[in-house]
């Protein structure tokens, strides 16, 4: 029983076909990574799943429901959380208030939202910065803030767009180890990453490779990175080294 089913989805912007007949599905409890060079269409795919814009053709089903033509807030209410590639913190609010915003999706009580937000932040190791304004945070913290805010909405599926970009390798690996635990809490993960393959290989259950809007591979990470078409898309052999 799939949690998310993307069926023959296409999307074009003017003359550019950003997503071309892409199909895949995600099972509950999986950690899936969508990889591909910059411009491959990962963010567009995320935007389609969360109804930021709508597909030209094809359909997207979540938990048995057709979500092809919703609004972003409806997608969030159904249980799809997301982070943005360019972090969007609410700068004039504190870290806690930022995350409370996510928690408010599941409760209307300010006190409960505060508690829930604090819990999530503690999970991400951010208890020291709860009451600081988001404005002053550095990028690693802001990335965690994005995740915390999305987690506070108690999603069934969380879409992480370039969540480790800009972090050092050790920071990225540490964050990834954290993300690997999300399925324990019933959250399936789809990550979109372009280059930090070390992270991907450590925690992905499955790898989907996009190239210029086309899905060129879908399967076990170890196996996918060996495929000639994948290597060709990346034009790099260093990934082969990590895989073997």
């Amino acid at each position, binding site marked *: 029983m799939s949690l998310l089913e993307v069926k023959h989805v296409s999307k074009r912007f003017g003359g550019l076909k950003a997503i071309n007949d892409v199909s895949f599905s995600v099972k509950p409890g999986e950690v899936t990574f969508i990889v591909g060079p910059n411009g491959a269409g990962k963010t567009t795919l995320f935007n389609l799943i969360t109804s930021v814009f709508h597909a030209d053709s094809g359909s997207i089903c979540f938990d048995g429901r057709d979500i092809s033509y919703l609004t972003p807030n409806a997608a969030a209410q159904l249980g799809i*959380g997301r982070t943005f590639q360019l972090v969007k913190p609410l700068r004039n*609010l504190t870290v806690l208030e930022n995350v409370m915003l996510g928690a408010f999706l599941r409760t209307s009580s300010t006190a409960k939202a505060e508690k829930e937000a604090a819990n999530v932040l503690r999970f991400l190791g951010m208890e020291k910065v709860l009451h600081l304004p988001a404005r002053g945070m550095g990028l690693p913290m802001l990335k965690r803030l994005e995740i915390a805010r999305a987690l506070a909405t108690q999603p069934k599926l969380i879409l992480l767009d370039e969540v480790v970009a800009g972090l050092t390798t050790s920071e990225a690996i540490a964050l990834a180890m*954290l993300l690997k635990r999300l399925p324990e809490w019933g959250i399936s993960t789809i990550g979109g990453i372009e280059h930090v393959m070390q992270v991907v290989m450590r925690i992905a259950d499955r790898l989907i490779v996009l190239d210029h809007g086309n899905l060129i591979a879908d399967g076990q990470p170890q196996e996918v990175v060996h495929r000639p078409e994948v290597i060709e898309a990346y034009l790099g052999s260093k990934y082969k080294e990590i895989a073997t």
Partner: protein
Amino acid sequence: MRKWQVLIAAVFLFAALFVPLLVPTDYTLQILFRVFLFAALGLAWNLVGGYAGQLSLGHAAYFGVGAYGLALFSKLGISPWVSVLLAVVVAMICAAAIGSVSFRLRGPYFVLCTIAFAEVLRLVAKNLTNVTGGDVGVQVPLLFTHSPIRSFYWSGVLLTAMAFILTVWIERSRFGYYLMAIREDQDTALSVGVNATRSKLWALLISAAITGLGGALYASMFLFIVPDQVLAMDISTEIAIVAMLGGAGTLLGPLVGSVVLESAAEIFKNVFKEAHLLIYGVLIVVVVLFMPDGIVGTCIRKLSLLKKPPAAPIGTPVLASTEKEPQHLAINE
């Protein structure tokens, strides 16, 4: 910060109730009525403009609808206070209509749209002479027959208190957080499930109700209204400036803004006579250039800088904390 603001406002409003017993002239009371009226209007605007960040320059629409509603419904024979209630309802309906068009627009387009709607209403009031009396005007019933000036003053204080309490309650509620999120980054708000259109509309409906009520009170005190008085863009501007001068998005801001602005206007009129609008213009320019957060906003900002500098360094190392056993998470229970 918040508790102090509530305390100051509570003391101020309570003390204000006793002013009619001390102040001799009706004229002064009328000016003070205006101070409280615009404080209430500023607080109402603050919900939409300050907290939600939707900077409307068309609130005169709701003010005028409240005023004309009272006048026209009572012309039909309906009792004054019921007319006030109906006028407020009509103001809210206008808000729903105006909001559903305007809120789809961003930035300057939104502002211009709110101006356009208010201007259309003003021109309609001017031109439909059979209904509204046009530029000649229309009579408004007296809401308080017993010591009217004092009663109007007290109604102003009461309206301000109501608006203030409402703001305090909203600020700490989910609704308030949603509004602030919409102000800061609407896309982020959408991504966590906030129905931005619905939230903005609700804020506008509440804002319009209070503004309409204020308009009705104002009209009743003057007993006679014309379109260029209650539907003019000047009213919209004054409301917005009261809130911005005091501090948009703060609790005490509109209250402070009104006290400062209305007293300043009164002083300017007496001292500068002919040039009072010019000084008013200078005041606006000065505020925008040097105090964009408003009086209260600037104070809050300066005071928070005096607090202890943050203890946690930016970019706390991530490795150590991920090894810890996480607390119980209420996710998907």
